[in-house]
């Protein structure tokens, strides 16, 4: 299967012509002479050189860049050793980076060992209660760890140990989740491959990029030609990330530096404190934040996926033309692909396949709420575990009140988007493209009022700010 997946990348997609087919960076991987050159020793050196130059832009530390590039160079010239290198390097770097933090190092190694043990249990006893529902056990176990840590007295040894464990475990939680649910994939992965995907060499957020070992096996380049194609795509994506980063820099200087348009958190704070910024600046702030989120998500995702491709895996982009989405569900799919996949894999499908099977619409809505409200909330609440440490168990949960509104609004929007009959698109640029794209953008701009990381304000304060965008005083 992987062979076909990679080969498809070489076939230029047949577009509809015109603007949609325009590419700032040409599809170099479709030119046979360039692909042949990329397979030669000189071609590989050139590709690695371009990759090094690109990574130098993102990694200010020269030593880190060289260490990184040395490993990718090794994989490029000795692809048969790809998996052993990918397994060992993250562990070596983990030890190296935490030599002066023995507690963090011990906690990290303990979490990795626990993850591997759970993977072994899930494959050894697939019919057991744990084997059938490993994710339920994993997420419950992590929640109990937070509850336990909340029960410790500050500045005691158990407090320090448990919160270190909580902070370390969340960094690995969703990687372990993919490992324990990979148990049913055929042929089964060996433990080394699973270990390689626990915070992989190419980096990631809390979300595994790109999913687990079973997925990586399917998208791995198997021949020198496939490797050349994938690496060309990797270098291109890195170049695209740099271009976007430069544009983002210019954007911030223009809108926030020169025009002094406030960030949404500042605009909201000003309203709460009784000194609201003018109406047009509130709107401008929200609209800019929408584009800025797309910028930062694209740059981060492109950088990680570019490195993943350099390692020889034909991973799909994390962000792919989100501004061309004409439906809410399409935007959700295009904006943060691997997070959406996490929600779909671990929350949507388990709910969809198990509940309300005789009621098609209810089933879709229930599964959407399971993913977008429960899954989304669980991911963010546990990711931001510091709120539990600083505010206690109930305070930590209460701090999420505004984002729950965001999750519910998003779930309603996505449910409607799925339930609407998907037929042929309306004809014409205005009705078929521009209006739907603007509608999608407006929806996400509006609900983003409730998407706040600071967790400083209450639902009532945020709703008042939201209403003020429409001249409504509450």
């Amino acid at each position, binding site marked *: *299967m992987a062979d*076909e*997946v990679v080969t*498809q990348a070489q*076939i230029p*997609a*047949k577009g*509809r012509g015109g603007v949609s087919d325009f590419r700032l960076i040409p599809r170099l991987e479709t030119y046979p002479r360039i692909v042949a050159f990329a397979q030669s020793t000189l071609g590989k050196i050139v590709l690695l050189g371009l990759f090094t130059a690109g990574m130098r832009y993102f990694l200010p530390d020269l030593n880190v860049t060289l260490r990184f590039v040395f490993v990718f160079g090794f994989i490029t010239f000795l692809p048969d050793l790809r998996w052993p290198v990918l397994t060992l390097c993250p562990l070596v770097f983990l030890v190296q980076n935490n030599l002066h933090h023995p507690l963090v190092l011990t906690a990290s190694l303990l979490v990795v060992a626990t993850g591997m043990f759970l993977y072994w249990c899930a494959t050894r006893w697939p019919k057991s209660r744990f084997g059938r529902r490993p994710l339920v056990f994993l997420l419950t176990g992590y929640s109990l760890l937070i509850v336990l840590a909340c029960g410790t007295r500050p500045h005691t040894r158990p407090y320090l140990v448990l919160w270190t464990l909580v902070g370390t475990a969340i960094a690995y939680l969703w990687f372990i989740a993919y490992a324990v649910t990979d148990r*049913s*994939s055929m042929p089964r992965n060996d433990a080394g491959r699973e270990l390689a995907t626990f915070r992989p060499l190419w980096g990631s957020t809390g979300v595994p990029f790109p999913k687990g070992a*079973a*997925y990586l096996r*399917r*998208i791995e380049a198997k021949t020198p030609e496939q490797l050349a194609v994938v690496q060309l795509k990797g270098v291109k994506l890195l170049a695209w990330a740099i271009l976007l980063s430069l544009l983002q820099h210019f954007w911030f200087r223009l809108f926030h530096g020169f025009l002094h348009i406030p960030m949404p958190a500042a605009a909201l704070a000003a309203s709460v404190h009784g000194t609201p910024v003018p109406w047009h600046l509130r709107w401008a702030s929200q609209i800019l934040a929408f584009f800025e989120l797309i910028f930062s998500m694209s740059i981060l995702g492109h950088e990680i996926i570019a490195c993943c491709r350099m390692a020889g895996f034909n991973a*799909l982009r994390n962000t*792919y033309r989100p501004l061309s989405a004409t439906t809410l*569900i*399409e935007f959700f*799919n295009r904006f943060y692909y691997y997070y*959406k*996949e996490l929600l*779909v*894999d671990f929350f*949507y*499908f388990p709910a*969809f*396949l*198990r509940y309300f*099977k005789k009621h*098609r619409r209810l089933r*879709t809505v229930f599964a959407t709420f399971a993913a977008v409200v429960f899954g989304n909330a669980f991911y963010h609440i546990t990711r931001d575990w510091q709120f539990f440490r600083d505010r206690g168990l109930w305070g930590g949960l209460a701090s999420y009140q505004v984002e729950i509104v965001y999750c519910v609004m998003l779930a309603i929007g996505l449910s409607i988007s*799925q339930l609407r009959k*998907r*037929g*042929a*698109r309306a004809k014409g640029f205005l009705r078929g493209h521009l209006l739907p794209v603007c509608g999608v953008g407006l929806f996400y701009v509006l609900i983003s009022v409730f998407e706040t990381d600071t967790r400083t304000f209450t639902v009532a304060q945020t709703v008042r700010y939201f209403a003020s965008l429409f001249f409504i005083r509450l």
Partner: protein
Amino acid sequence: MSGIDEIRNFVQELLTRQDDRRPLADNDSLLMSGRLQSVDAVEIVLFLEERFGIDFAELGFDREQLDSIDTMAALVQNAGSRS
């Protein structure tokens, strides 16, 4: 019409809705390659449940099973031989 033909027609319809008119072989990757999305996977699940009586909750679910026409046909065949 045989099972694989029905599956092929259904997948072709999903692709056509997205203006994807590239050639489609039975072993072409659909989900892993990004030609179809999760929302399409949901439609495929519904189609396989309704048309062939497959119970994914019982069989176990792996999206790789829906990645090509061939894998879907194999899934239908295996489910048929079990029941």
